[in-house]
């Protein structure tokens, strides 16, 4: 089975929450390298990890992860105008 690439906003959300990769990794319970792999979209998280990350940022999972490339904040703002 060919797996799809899962896109995410982890890097943006982490920076907005002023957290380092190590801090986020410790809070979620993964290795800090795994956060790096997620942010570079080189690793597809399990459903459990995706929910844990979404809950950590207080957002629905579909706002953090997507099977289609995520729109940047600039794009969203321009579309709203």
């Amino acid at each position, binding site marked *: 089975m060919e797996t799809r690439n899962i896109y995410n906003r982890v890097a943006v959300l982490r920076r907005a929450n002023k957290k380092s990769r190590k801090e986020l990794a410790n809070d979620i319970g993964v290795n800090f*390298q*795994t956060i790096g*792999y997620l942010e570079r979209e080189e690793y597809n*998280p399990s459903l459990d*990890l995706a929910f844990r990350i979404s809950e950590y940022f207080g957002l629905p999972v579909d706002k953090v992860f997507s099977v289609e490339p995520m729109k940047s904040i600039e794009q969203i703002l321009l579309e709203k105008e």
Partner: protein
Amino acid sequence: MRNPSSKSYRYFYVFLNMTMLLSTVVIMSFAVTGDNHLFMLVPGLGTLIILVFSTVKIYLRTGVWKFIHSNSENMDERELALARMAVQKAYAVFTVTILGFVMILSIALSYDATAQIVSKKSSSLWIVLAGFIYFAHSLPAVFIVLREKYLNF
């Protein structure tokens, strides 16, 4: 090539490590079975030192050795998948290597000269066995080093 995340750095040290392992086993076996013990022991010790150096440099300092030998309960899901891939590949390579070695040894033993050397100097087999033990332990780390760009475990 000093950058540990570069492909050439990682491949170089894995190649060096495996070459030195093979060289050490071959030279030390000859040192034990041959007559010129001291003459063969010097290059044997040289390759052994390089083997230890490359092991420290690419497996121990990067944390790969500790990672692959750590308890799976301490790993997250990505690390578990990585360890599984490494162990799976290592198992396949080790099995094929052992089968190849046994086949070559059985052919070699069919010749009287080889059989006599092995029966007289069975201590050389201990060196080969030690080499295989190291080989089996380092193989999963080899696959992690070859695959992972960021060696900071």
